[in-house]
Every structure is written in structure tokens, then in C-alpha cells.
């Protein structure tokens, strides 16, 4: 019996072994087998750059001027004869131009064309082009054809109606013009070929291919084929018959997939053909790459980290290949400006810049990228290595990241410049990790003027160890009818509560977290004490947040959960939970008061726009004694920086208007940069549907002098930084959410926060 048991056991474990090895097999093929994988790894890790390496040769970037008249590009392409053909509008979006460059984008010849409203221009290999409008209605479906000589003609598109998109009957999503054929993708997300032959002025649309069943989002001409971005990745089609080309797995993987299945997905990676027919080049934020059809590798020609295209907010229009040492990239930067970069291989330049500067941040942000980009541009001999603690694609927590950082600092392997957001800055200062940067701040103030109430907030005995580059703060916006709201948290809450009259909701339905972040930003300075936390003040803030949260009786699921609201969760430009989003509800009568963040000049322009549509005014949240602000992107200089001169110049530049010229979120501490931002707001309009279904909206305009003065006075009045401590903030939000949502009593919440903070402080 026992023998049988043992045998049985052996068989079972044998089976398990088999199962396990079967499981592992596809995986073990992974790393070695498909090179797409190795490409993926490369992307995830970033490229290791070793400044000591003596290798020579690197692509150097120069920015070229765009054609003089063009400020918005409709389409651009390098033609077979080596010229670049570009279509675009002037700054008033009225006159349409065609610009041609024979010398790789350095000089342009521009000709104006007839008037028309177009959205995109699909340029063919021979320089002929088709310009298309939105195609939303019958009178918007004329295709404007321009041949290489500039002769023009029209063809009308016969688009079928697509239901399920509201008033819109159809729309052109993408178009490609190649070998005399015009392909379009419409809302049905299929590819159509437009018949341009014959003398008719009506282009009949014929479904081009049955080979792709899934949704198509975007198409591009590539090497005599058509690259289609589908919801399952990129597919290649023969342009003659619409059959699928043999799949090149490496390329498919490199060109990426549609991340969120939205209608407006576009190629984020721009491929282009070059040399012999089977060579492909492509560009993305990681750099410029080369791939030969069927080859198992992708070769990196230029490292995006060293180039302007490394900024993740850049969107690509076109990559032009001339030969293996000359490229031109057309792109759109974070501010929406058209850019043209030329890349020339310099065999004499060292393969990587001689000097290296390491900048550490717990989390990456667009603003940081923009700063690094600006510094890189003015210091081409320096490679700025961004060292990001939490990249978000793994389970590393802030504590893990800080632990690693501390170890590195103690071992002398630390970064040169630290972004102190979320780091234990006070301990670093106390332990002598940071160097005094007070002089640079003073110098920057003398040169261009700073908001010294912000930059010098941490100055002690003349020394300054951290300086924020941007800042924001929590505020309120209210309807003219209800009058000003101010005072302590209790007063504010009581005042807002008194507005509840059974006549519709008072507040915008934001989630518990949004309320808590706002109150933390505004009130944390008031409950901070020398030895811990002021419990009554803490309780008052929590109670106020609870009052506002409960006021309109929304369910948690009905509320907007503004992801990325707080400064530490904050990523990129997609700011949610800003005050103007809440205030929009005021126009349509869905709210009387909104609570949120003033996230920058654009935000304030929106508020003025809203108040123009429906009278109201705005102010700080609980801004009586402490007019609190939240420092953002606080820089510190490591006292053990390897090249401390370089690190100093980085911080100096970060404080200048030049260093901040690309930044768009939050307010600049630099007055010149702030004023530039105020004046350069591009006008736009926003519309939303109100409670009764009617659409309403408002206009966003640059600030008037008067408005600017008002805002400047408000910024200058800020006097206290928020309690910038990750641990305390996390406790406040974490425990607070339980209280607001009714899972924990008020007393328990206050004591849980107070006890833990006390413990934290006593360590």
C-alpha cells in the first residue's frame, strides 16, 4: 500500500514537473527568441549611457525654422526627389500655404492656395496631395487635390452615414495618398479607397480591404504599402489589392499598439521608408531607429534622451530620411507649436556627451522632462540622466525607492540634483545632504524677478536648501449670487452648507480624495506644530471636508474621481480635479460653488471665461491666516555632486524664464516666465452640455492687464507652504477617505492620524 502511495506521489510530482516545464517553455523562448522582446526591454530600461566610453559619432540636433507663414501644419512628407512638401495654415488659420524645401528643410518656398477649411493633407511620393476636411456634413466633403505643379481640382466624397455618434453622421479619421491612390478611414473604422480616376467630380468610396476585421484608427503610406494602426497593432497592406503583407513581428511590436481603444488613436511612432525598398526608419520618444524587413533586431541610431523628441509630450508628424546621416523630424511640442528638427550625424562628436548630470525624482513629470530638455538644448555637451524612483510599471513603492536612494547617497553614488517632491527633505537638510543654493535664488531674483514669497519660504538664517520651480494652491469659486466665501474651515463649511436650499446641488460632485487633497493643501500648515499635530485643527479640517462631501448626498460612484490630483500622484499635463472643471457646472446650473486646485495660468483664464458667462468670483480655500501654497518640483543641490558646477548651472537655468519656457502646468516662480504665460494664452472655446441638455460654454482668452494684476496680487499674498511631508499627507488622505465614506468615526480618524503622526515625529 505504502509503495503504491509513494509511486503515486512520484507520478504526481512528475506530472507537475512536466506541467511546469510546459508553462515555462514559451517564456524561455521569450528573451532570446523574439527580438521584439529585447526591444521592449531596452525601452523599459532606458539606454545605459556610459560617458567614459571613447566611441565617436552621434547625431546632433539643430532646430530649423518652420516656413515663415505656416503656424499650423496639415501634412508634410519627403518626396521621392528629396524635396519636402508641407501644407499648413498661417497663424490666423485663414490662408492655406504649400511650402517646398529642396535642402532638407533649411529653406522654404511658399505659395498661398485657395481658401478652404481642411483638417489634414495627405501628401504623395511625387509631391501631389489631397487635402480633406472633417467630412462631418455633406458640404464638408470636398477633397482638394493639388498636383506637383500646383494645379488644383476638387473631388466630392460620397461618404455613407454612420449611426451612433450623435449629430455627427460621419467623420474622416485619417487619410493616406500614395501611388496616385487616396485612402481614407472614417468613423466605421474601415479603410476606403477613393476613386479619383475618370473625369467625374464625385469620388466613389469603395471598401478597400476585407483582410482586416478589427477597427482601423490611422493609416500611413510606407514603402509602397499601407501601414494601418488597428486595435490589434499595426498591419501592412499591399496598395494594389488590399491583401495583407507578410507580418514582420519585430516591426509590428516596435510600432506599438492602440493603448486605449479610442476613436482618435494615432500612430505614436512615425515610420518612414528609406534606401532600398525593405529598409524602415522610425522615430519615437526613445529616439530614431532602423529596421531591415525580416531582420530580428531594431537598431537605435539616435538616443531620444539626448534630443528634443525625448519629451513625452511631443507628438510626431513626419520623419524624413535623406540618407543614413541626415534626418528631419516634424513634430508638435507641449505648447502646440510646430517644430522642425534636423539631425546630422557628426562622426567627430563623441558617441555620448562627455559630461553627465544625474537628476533624481521620485516620479517623472512632464515639467521635469521639459526642464531637462531645455537644459540639454543649451548644453549639448552634457547628458542629463534622469533617475526616476517610481516609474509606475512595477510594484516599487515610494518607501522602496527612497530606501534605495538613501543607500546610494550614503555610498557616494547619489544624484547631483534632487527633485525633493515626496522625499524627506528636512532630514536631508539636517544630515547635510543638500548644499546651500540661496545665492542662485537671489541672483535669479535680481535678474528676472521671482515670487520670493514662494522661493524663499524655506530660507532659514540666510541659507536655502530647496527651491520650488512651480507652485499651485487650493481654492474656491462661487456664484455671484451666493457671495464671497472665506474664513476658517468650520466657517467655510458652515457657509457652504447654508447654501443648501433644496434647490439643486451646491457643489460639484467630486470624490472624497479631491476634497481631502484640497483641505490638506489649504490647511495642513495650520495643524502642523513643532512637536506633532494640532488635533483640534486637524479635526476641524476633516469635519469641514466631511460636511462638503455629505452636502449633496451623492453616491461615491456618481462622483468624479479625479485621478492624479495630488502633487505626488501627479503625472504629465492631464490635470483633473482643477477648480475650473468644477466651475463649469456653474454655467449649466449644476453647482453653485466649486472646490479644487488652481493649477496654473490657463486655469485662471478658464475661470475668468466662466465668470464672463455667469458672474462669479474666486479666492483661496480657508485662506485667512495661512495663505497656503503647494510647492512643486522643488530642486535641491547635492552637496556631494560630482560636477557641482554643472549641477549649479542646472539649478540656475531652472529658475530662469528660458529654463521654464516650455512648462505649462502650475504657476512659475519666475515672474518673467509667468508674465509670458499670461500673455501667450492661445484663445479657445469650451462647450459642455448642461442639465437640460442644451449646450453652453465659454471663451478662454489671454488675461487682461487688470486680471493679471489681480492674479499677481493673489500669488504674492501666498505666505505658507503646505506641510510637505509624504507620510503625513498619505495618512491624512488614507484615513480621511475612510471617514468621509463613513467607514470610520470622526474620533477614530483623528486619533489614528494623530497617533501615527506623533509616532512619526518622535522617531
Amino acid at each position: 500500500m505504502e509503495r503504491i502511495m509513494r509511486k503515486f506521489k512520484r507520478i504526481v510530482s512528475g506530472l507537475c514537473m512536466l506541467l511546469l516545464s510546459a508553462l515555462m517553455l514559451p517564456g524561455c523562448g521569450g528573451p532570446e527568441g523574439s527580438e521584439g522582446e529585447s526591444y521592449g526591454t531596452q525601452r523599459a530600461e532606458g539606454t545605459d549611457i556610459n560617458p567614459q566610453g571613447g566611441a565617436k559619432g552621434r547625431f546632433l540636433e539643430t532646430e530649423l525654422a518652420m516656413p515663415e507663414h505656416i503656424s499650423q501644419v496639415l501634412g508634410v512628407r519627403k518626396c521621392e526627389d528629396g524635396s519636402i512638401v508641407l501644407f499648413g495654415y498661417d497663424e490666423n488659420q485663414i490662408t492655406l500655404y504649400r511650402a517646398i524645401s529642396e535642402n532638407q528643410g533649411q529653406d522654404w518656398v511658399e505659395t498661398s492656395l485657395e481658401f478652404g477649411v481642411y483638417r489634414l493633407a495627405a501628401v504623395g511620393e511625387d509631391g501631389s496631395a489631397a487635402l480633406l476636411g472633417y467630412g462631418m456634413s455633406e458640404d464638408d466633403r470636398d477633397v482638394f487635390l493639388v498636383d506637383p505643379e500646383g494645379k488644383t481640382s476638387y473631388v466630392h466624397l460620397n461618404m455613407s452615414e454612420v449611426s451612433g455618434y450623435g449629430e455627427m453622421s460621419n467623420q474622416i479619421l485619417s487619410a493616406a495618398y500614395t501611388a496616385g491612390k487616396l485612402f481614407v478611414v472614417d468613423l466605421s473604422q474601415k479603410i476606403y479607397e477613393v476613386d479619383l480616376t475618370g473625369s467625374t467630380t464625385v469620388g466613389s468610396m469603395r471598401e478597400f480591404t476585407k483582410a482586416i476585421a478589427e477597427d482601423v484608427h490611422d493609416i500611413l503610406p510606407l514603402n509602397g504599402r499601407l501601414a494601418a494602426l488597428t486595435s490589434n497593432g499595426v498591419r501592412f497592406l499591399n496598395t494594389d489589392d488590399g491583401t495583407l503583407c507578410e507580418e514582420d513581428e519585430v516591426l509590428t511590436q516596435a510600432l506599438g499598439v492602440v493603448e486605449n481603444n479610442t476613436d482618435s488613436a494615432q500612430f505614436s511612432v512615425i515610420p518612414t521608408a528609406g534606401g532600398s525598398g525593405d529598409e524602415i526608419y522610425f522615430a519615437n520618444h526613445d529616439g530614431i531607429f532602423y529596421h531591415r524587413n525580416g531582420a530580428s533586431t531594431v537598431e537605435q541610431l539616435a538616443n531620444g534622451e539626448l534630443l528634443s523628441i525625448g519629451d513625452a509630450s511631443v507628438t510626431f508628424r513626419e520623419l524624413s530620411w535623406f540618407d543614413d546621416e541626415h534626418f528631419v523630424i516634424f513634430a508638435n511640442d507641449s505648447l502646440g507649436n510646430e517644430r522642425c528638427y534636423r539631425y546630422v550625424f557628426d562622426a567627430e562628436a563623441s558617441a555620448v556627451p562627455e559630461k553627465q548630470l544625474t537628476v533624481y525624482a521620485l516620479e517623472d513629470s512632464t515639467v521635469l522632462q521639459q526642464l531637462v530638455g531645455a537644459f540639454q538644448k543649451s548644453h549639448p555637451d552634457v547628458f542629463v540622466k534622469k533617475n526616476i524612483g517610481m516609474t509606475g510599471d512595477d510594484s516599487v513603492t515610494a518607501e522602496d525607492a527612497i530606501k534605495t536612494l538613501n543607500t546610494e547617497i550614503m555610498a557616494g553614488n547619489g544624484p547631483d540634483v534632487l527633485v525633493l517632491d515626496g522625499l524627506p527633505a528636512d532630514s536631508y537638510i539636517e544630515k547635510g545632504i543638500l548644499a546651500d543654493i540661496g545665492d542662485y535664488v537671489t541672483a535669479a531674483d535680481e535678474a528676472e524677478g521671482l515670487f520670493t514669497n514662494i522661493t524663499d519660504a524655506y530660507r532659514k538664517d540666510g541659507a536655502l536648501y530647496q527651491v520650488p520651480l512651480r507652485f499651485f494652491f487650493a481654492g474656491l469659486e462661487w456664484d455671484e449670487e451666493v457671495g464671497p466665501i472665506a474664513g476658517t474651515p468650520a466657517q467655510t463649511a458652515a457657509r457652504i452648507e447654508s447654501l443648501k436650499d433644496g434647490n439643486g446641488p451646491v457643489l460639484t460632485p467630486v470624490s472624497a480624495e479631491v476634497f481631502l487633497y484640497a483641505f490638506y493643501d489649504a490647511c495642513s500648515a495650520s495643524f502642523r506644530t513643532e512637536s506633532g499635530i494640532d488635533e483640534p485643527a486637524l479635526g476641524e479640517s476633516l469635519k469641514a471636508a466631511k460636511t462638503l462631501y455629505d452636502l449633496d448626498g451623492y453616491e461615491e460612484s456618481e462622483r468624479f474621481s479625479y485621478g492624479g490630483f495630488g502633487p505626488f500622484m501627479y503625472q504629465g499635463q492631464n490635470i483633473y480635479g482643477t477648480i475650473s472643471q468644477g466651475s463649469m457646472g456653474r454655467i449649466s446650473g449644476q453647482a453653485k460653488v466649486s472646490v479644487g486646485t488652481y493649477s496654473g495660468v490657463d486655469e485662471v483664464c478658464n475661470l475668468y471665461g466662466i465668470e464672463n458667462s455667469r458672474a462669479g468670483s474666486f479666492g483661496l480655500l480657508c485662506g485667512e491666516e495661512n495663505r497656503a501654497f503647494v510647492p512643486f518640483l522643488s530642486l535641491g543641490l547635492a552637496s556631494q555632486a560630482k560636477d557641482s558646477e554643472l549641477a549649479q548651472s542646472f539649478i540656475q537655468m531652472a529658475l530662469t524664464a528660458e529654463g521654464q519656457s516650455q512648462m505649462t502646468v502650475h504657476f512659475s516662480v519666475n515672474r518673467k516666465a509667468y508674465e509670458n504665460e499670461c500673455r501667450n494664452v492661445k484663445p479657445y472655446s469650451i462647450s459642455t452640455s448642461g442639465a437640460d441638455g442644451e449646450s453652453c460654454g465659454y471663451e478662454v482668452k489671454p488675461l487682461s492687464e487688470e486680471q493679471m494684476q489681480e492674479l499677481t496680487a493673489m500669488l504674492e499674498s501666498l505666505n505658507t507652504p503646505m506641510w510637505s511631508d509624504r507620510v503625513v499627507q498619505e495618512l491624512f488622505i488614507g484615513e480621511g477617505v475612510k471617514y468621509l465614506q463613513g467607514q470610520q468615526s470622526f474620533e477614530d480618524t483623528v486619533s489614528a492620524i494623530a497617533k501615527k503622526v506623533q509616532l512619526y515625529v518622535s522617531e
Partner: protein
Amino acid sequence: MRKAVKLFSAALLTVSGLLTAAPLFFLFCGSLMGSGELGTYLGPYIYHTDGYAMWRLFPLYPTLRNLIRLVLDSPEFFHMFWNTMAVTLGILAGQFLFGLPAAWGLARYPVFGRRLFYMLCILLMMLPFQVTMLSAYLVLNRLGLLDTLWAVIAPGAFSTFSVFLMYRFFCGIPEEILESARIDGAGEFQIFVRIGFPLGASGILSAFVLQFLECFGMIEQPLVFIKKKSLWPLSLYLPEIEAQQAGFALCCSFVALLPPLLVFGMGQKYLEAGITAGAIRE
């Protein structure tokens, strides 16, 4: 009466045994559930709605989707799995080469200060990792091992815990056996290979099984010593339980648990021999 006691103890053992092993079963079932089904059961946990997370014994709609996703769409999972294997094998090999002779030597020869050394070993294995983390980092930095798998393998290969276990084991081998071997003219090395090794085999294996488990649970060391994510072991791959991911997370946990379980199944009988090598057989 005796029978009743026996029955009672059988029942007690069965119930507590089942309770102890239940979580494993839970992981197994969870990995076979779709996100829809899991979402219903775990809803209160994930969304903090009212009510409590529930469970049913077997999935209502079993699906292999999680497993397939893991096998086909998660190359990083396997990449990390192989890193773990490399680390584990490296550590075990290292212990075989270095730890084993060290334990033997400590146990059998009157080396100067061996008592002190032994006590220090016990002490060092008890200290929390973060205490010596910085200093260990400095040592590894000096040796140029940071950012390689060796940064984890090297300290692991000299694990004091294994030395302690093997030492206890070797201590249990009666001196008389060795003496008689010496009289027979066996060299010291021969004694180690011919006598110490076979007699201590189950102890060595049990130390290795425990070490294997340790390797699969390593979290702090790789996190601090290895920056390159491509070198991270599986223990750092822990997807959060999100609404869409619950089943997948459970599945990852379950698959990650299989190798230790397997080794465990094979090594259990050595574990049982554990610390006894003829301890009181004299």
C-alpha cells in the same frame, strides 16, 4: 476512551490542517476565475461597497484565461522567473562549495574562536536586513558587484542560516565514527566526503530546501542591490489586485508558488529529518 481521544485528535488535526492549507486552495481557485466572477465575490474589498468579500469553493465559470494571459502575454513574468532560478541555483551552488565546508569545519575542528564565530552567526542571521543593508551595499559596491545578479547571489551563498543548520547537523554525528575512520587511515578530506557528507546529506538537503524557499521570497535585497529591472527576480512581480486584474493577480501568485511547492514536496522528507542526524543515537 483511548479511541475517543484518538478520534478527537484526528478531527482536530484534520480541521486545523485544512484551515492551514486553505489559502493555497483559494489561490488555485481564484486563478481559474474570470474577472467578472471575482469582481462579484471581491467587490466589497475592491470597491469598498457594503457587504463582505465572499468565496465559493469552486469557480462557477472556470476559465484558463488568466493562465493563458500569463503564459502568452507576460514575457516579463518568465524573464523574472528565470532570474529567480539563476539566483537560486547560484546561491545553492555557492552554499555547497563554501557554506558546507565551513559548517563542517566549525562543527568538527577546534578552530580558534569557533564558539564566538558560531554565536556571531546566530546573531547575524537574526538581525533585520535593513540594519546591515547600507554596509552590505558599501561592500558590494567596493567589490563591483552592484547591479548584477551576483549582488544577491554572493551574500546568499554565504548565508549564515544554512551554516547554522548544517553546523547543528554535523554536530550530531558522533565523534567515534570519525575517530574510527581516522584510525583506518582516512584523510580529513576523505572523512568529510565519505562520512560527513553522506551522514549529513538529509541535513544539507533540508538546509537547501529552506534556502530555496527563502530565495523565492526575497524582496529587499534585489530591490536595493539591483537597479536594472531586467535582472529583477519574480518575488518583485506582484500585480495589485485591481478590479480588472484580480484573477490575474491570483494566478500569478499561484504559478509563482508552484516551484517552491514542488521543491517542498520533494524535499519534505529531508526537512523532516531536519536537525536530527542521529542526535541521540549514542
